């Protein structure tokens, strides 16, 4: 195995696209090194992106926040402005693993590892986050939900790297939240995860909403019908019932040792309700 730590994304993309063997990107390494250790993969090349300028920075810009691909969960949690604007995204990212894992794990890695149960991804999808991708053919920007295509699979082409994640600028009276169900109180993988993001008008009526589900389908799923159930309402019980129904209808989960199909479908609706209520509170609604 070769280890390279280039200082630009362009150079990193070049290394990856020229490699004839198995090449992998190293950011936090909390998935990659586990897969190496357990023998799932045997890389010929590992490209560490942490020495690239900007890869470990959170930048507040005119249009929102730009989060470098190697920013750790712990760094996200310590960034006050980001936490204030996008508390749901930060709490979702901070649920990944232990304090030790938080010291290294990244949202870009969580996204590109493409686990259906990735905690930060439903929150990012609900937030309308975009990923900036650098590749041999230049830069492109895509909605984060377009990156995972199935468990462990992404739409990234050979040589492409997620350079940063962009969170949009916050409209007034907006709030987001992420909740997950796990059988333990810490250090577990989501059985169901729900991200909700809402914007209210002066009267407290929902004008914009996005709802995303994790761990109930092969990829994280954006659920437009669930958002529709909230828009135009003050999230009265009837609207929340419709939200829960829409979420349950959007699930196509597996049965496994951590949760049955029926349980996951039911819990998706329950968590969506609870997350919506938290998002509304954070948006300044009642």
């Amino acid at each position: 195995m070769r280890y390279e730590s280039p200082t630009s994304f362009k150079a990193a993309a070049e290394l990856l696209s020229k490699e004839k063997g198995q090449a992998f990107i190293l950011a936090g390494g909390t998935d990659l090194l586990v897969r190496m250790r357990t023998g799932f993969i045997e890389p010929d090349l590992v490209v560490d992106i942490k020495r690239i300028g900007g890869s470990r920075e959170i930048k507040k810009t005119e249009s929102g926040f730009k989060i470098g691909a190697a920013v750790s969960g712990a760094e996200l949690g310590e960034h006050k402005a980001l936490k204030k604007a996008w508390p749901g995204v930060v709490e979702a990212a901070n649920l990944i693993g232990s304090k030790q894992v938080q010291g290294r794990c990244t949202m870009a890695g969580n996204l590109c590892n493409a686990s259906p149960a990735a905690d930060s991804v439903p929150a990012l999808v609900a937030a309308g986050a975009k990923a900036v991708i650098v590749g041999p053919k230049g830069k492109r920007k895509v909605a984060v939900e377009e990156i995972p295509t199935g468990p462990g699979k992404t739409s990234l082409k050979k040589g492409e790297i997620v350079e940063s994640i962009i969170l949009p600028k916050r409209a007034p009276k907006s709030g987001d939240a992420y909740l997950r169900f796990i059988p333990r109180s810490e250090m577990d993988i989501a059985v169901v995860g729900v991200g909700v993001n809402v914007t209210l008008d002066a009267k407290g009526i929902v004008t914009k909403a996005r709802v995303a589900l994790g761990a109930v389908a092969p990829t994280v799923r954006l659920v437009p019908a669930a958002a529709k159930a909230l828009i135009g309402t003050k999230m009265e019980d009837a609207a929340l019932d419709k939200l829960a129904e829409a979420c349950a209808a959007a699930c196509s989960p597996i049965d496994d040792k951590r949760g049955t199909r029926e349980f996951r479908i039911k819990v998706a609706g329950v968590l969506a309700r609870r997350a919506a209520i938290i998002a509304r509170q954070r948006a300044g609604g009642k």
Partner: protein
Amino acid sequence: MSGIHVTTKINGDEVQFVCEADESLLDVLRNRLGLTGAKEGCGTGDCGACSVTVDGRLTCSCLVLGAEVDGHDIGTIEGMAMGDELHPLQKKFIEHAALQCGICTPGFLVAAKALLDHNPEPTETEIRFGLAGNLCRCTGYDKIVRAVQAAAEEMNSAKKIQQKVA
């Protein structure tokens, strides 16, 4: 395969080593540098026995490549005591019998110190969440939590006395 030359700081001292590209920081510490305080439990970031700090941030050294730490500051359990003077956490772990076999202890101490550096007066819940990445299979967690509480108390009262004197 030619080795990778790495210059780093470990517990404040400059250290240079040569390692293989796929060698973990844990293996470098234990096998090349003789720093055997960090232990390998699971090797996959679940148990915390290999906990170290990189630039002050708690991490599992089994999930870091040796090659990655060039130019960074590493903190290990070997840097915790000041010469013969044990750190208050180490003293309280002994007083409270917060260990039996001791394999998890270096990791718990490094994690507990990182927790107290960040949050000097943690609640019991914060301690339990803060140490959730460290597994102990013999003592049980209560004695460990009590030891961390006692150390925090002692460190905070020592700080208050210092402030009064100043």
